[in-house]
């Protein structure tokens, strides 16, 4: 009988390659960007032509340091670059400039959140340690046509931060959660855009299995060049099942480099480039060791945004937000900051504001982006918020009117829709539409007394008097009905309590 899979533990480590958000390349001044004609973004330094010298891009270094600060890593006093030598046409110089011995970022950790039992329940949190991150250059792109291959060097020399984790991940869900968390951190800090469709984030995934409780790590395989979070998740699932099958059949795992075919959802052994691992690294003689001043580190530390899970805890614990709303807001820095501006304008009801932002505002923003014919329905909030017709203080104004009982929650939805169309203040719309609720006590007192006198509600009154607080709500409906929904609910509640004693 075969051992159930739960007897095995999977151990995963990731190497995440992220293109940094810069205008020029990392050692050359050539610009770079997605979707340009082949070889139009290449200069002599990128090609390593005779007489050229690489000079490190300050922005690439600072973005790398900022990443380090975001994950709580240490930024060493010195970092340096090495040559990784290999012959392959994606590499115009026959070596890649990378950092082997003295990387720019050492240590750090990324907090992750696993899916909860349902959408409104927060899942388990865990910290994944970062071993180091080094700043290197991306390589060119190969495409295969007939008997030959074609090379485009536009991507060669693009700043690439390789983030290497410790083998701390224990499931495909953890790998997925890690990447989502990492992407949020990188984009919120402005370090990288992480657009996976443009190849701005690529992963190598190391997987091994061992018997649960065992200390020693099993033999690992490395699946290279995964270009989406789902590919990483699928690779882990596939590779775990494959390794279990091999070991349970009495075979052993070969340490090998593998590829992933996303269309067929299966892995395969990469034909080993002979001597591929003999890179003969040595310090690059063209690039001096860089001393990173503590002033620079301190300046960059001020740019590091609040960690998304610290923000989430603050929203839930201090502002009293439901987890569902908090978790939607924190994944997008622009959206979270928009929300906080609204809260600053009306601090009494953060949850009311959060619900409108996380539900109504996001829905209408996405819909208007879609209606505009733009292919950016899933565009990040900064882009959408820039064209948002409602300003944070205006949304706060709407929530305030609701809280004061001037309009009902139902009416607030209607006013919101109107605000989104016209950009007007909530109060102006409420007045123009004559939505102000009736706060005339005299008239309302009469209606309340009439409703209480109605024998149809006698049972509810008796229950309320017997201590069932909720029974009072049954009386509010008929009152609202008789005032065409214009009565101030706060006032109704007060009057009912007064008359029912």
């Amino acid at each position, binding site marked *: 009988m075969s051992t159930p899979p739960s007897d095995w533990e999977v151990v995963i480590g990731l190497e995440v390659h992220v293109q940094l958000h*810069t*205008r*020029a390349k990392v050692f*050359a*001044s*050539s*610009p770079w960007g997605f979707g340009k*004609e*082949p*070889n*139009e*973004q*290449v*200069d*002599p330094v990128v*090609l390593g*032509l005779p007489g050229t010298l690489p*000079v*490190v*891009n*300050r*922005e*690439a*270094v600072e973005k790398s340091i900022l990443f380090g600060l975001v994950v709580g890593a240490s930024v060493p006093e*010195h970092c340096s670059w090495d040559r990784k*030598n290999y*012959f*392959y*046409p994606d590499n115009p110089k026959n070596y890649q400039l990378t950092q082997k011995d003295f990387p720019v970022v050492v240590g750090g950790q990324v907090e992750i959140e696993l899916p909860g039992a349902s959408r409104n329940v927060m899942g388990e949190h865990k910290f994944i340690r970062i071993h180091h991150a080094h700043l290197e250059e991306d390589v060119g792109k*190969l*495409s*295969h*046509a*007939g*008997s*030959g*291959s*074609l*090379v*485009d*060097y536009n991507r060669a020399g693009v700043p690439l931060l390789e983030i290497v984790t410790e083998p701390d991940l224990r499931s495909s869900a953890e790998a997925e959660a890690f990447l989502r968390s990492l992407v949020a951190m990188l984009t919120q800090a402005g370090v990288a855009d992480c657009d996976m469709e443009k190849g701005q984030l690529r992963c190598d995934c190391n997987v091994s299995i061992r018997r649960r409780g065992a200390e020693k790590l099993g033999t690992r395989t490395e699946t290279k060049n995964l270009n989406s979070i789902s590919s990483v998740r699928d690779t882990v699932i596939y590779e775990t099942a494959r390794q279990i099958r091999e070991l349970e059949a009495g075979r052993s795992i070969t340490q090998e480099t593998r*590829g992933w*075919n996303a269309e067929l959802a299966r892995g*395969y052994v*990469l*034909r080993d480039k002979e*001597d591929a691992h*003999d890179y*003969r690294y040595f310090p690059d003689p063209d690039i*001096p*060791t*860089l*001393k*990173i*001043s503590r002033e*620079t580190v301190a300046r960059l530390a001020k740019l590091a945004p609040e960690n998304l899970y610290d923000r989430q805890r603050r929203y839930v614990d201090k502002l009293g937000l439901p987890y569902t709303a908090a978790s939607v807001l924190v994944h997008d820095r622009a959206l979270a900051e928009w929300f906080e501006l609204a809260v600053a304008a009306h601090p009494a009801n953060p949850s009311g504001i959060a619900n409108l932002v996380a539900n109504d505002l996001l829905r209408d923003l996405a819909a208007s982006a879609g209606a505009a014919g733009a292919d950016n329905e899933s565009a990040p909030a900064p882009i959408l918020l820039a064209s948002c017709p409602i300003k944070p203080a205006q949304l706060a104004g709407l929530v305030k009117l609701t809280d004061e009982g001037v309009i009902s929650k139902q009416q607030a939805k209607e006013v919101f829709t109107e605000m989104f169309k016209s950009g007007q203040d909530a109060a102006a719309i409420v007045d123009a539409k004559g939505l102000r609720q009736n706060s005339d006590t005299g008239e309302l007192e009469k209606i309340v007394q009439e409703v209480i006198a109605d024998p149809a509600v006698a049972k509810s009154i008796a229950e309320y008097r017997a201590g069932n607080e909720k029974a009072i709500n049954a009386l509010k409906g008929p009152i609202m009905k008789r005032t065409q929904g214009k009565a101030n609910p706060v006032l109704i509640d007060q009057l009912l309590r007064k008359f029912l004693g």
Partner: protein
Amino acid sequence: MAEGFDIDHLAKLARLSLTAEEKALYSSQLNQILGHFQALAEADLPATIDDARVVNEAALRSDEPGPVLGADAVTRIAPASRDGQISVPRVVDDES
């Protein structure tokens, strides 16, 4: 001293085809070079970073895009090209 390398392996990595005489000559020269480094490694030196090779951030490049060569110029210096790309013998990582 004993050779710490395999000359055939090194020649292969460097894509060099060497005659027996060349192998003997370069092995001996490489041994001398490695001997120098061995001497350096054995010297009792303070474990500090060589200040002469250290620069501060003033030596970094600003993130300003500069001129590019253009695809014509890039492909012109390659032995073969097609549609603005450099053409090379087929190299494959594909599933096979």
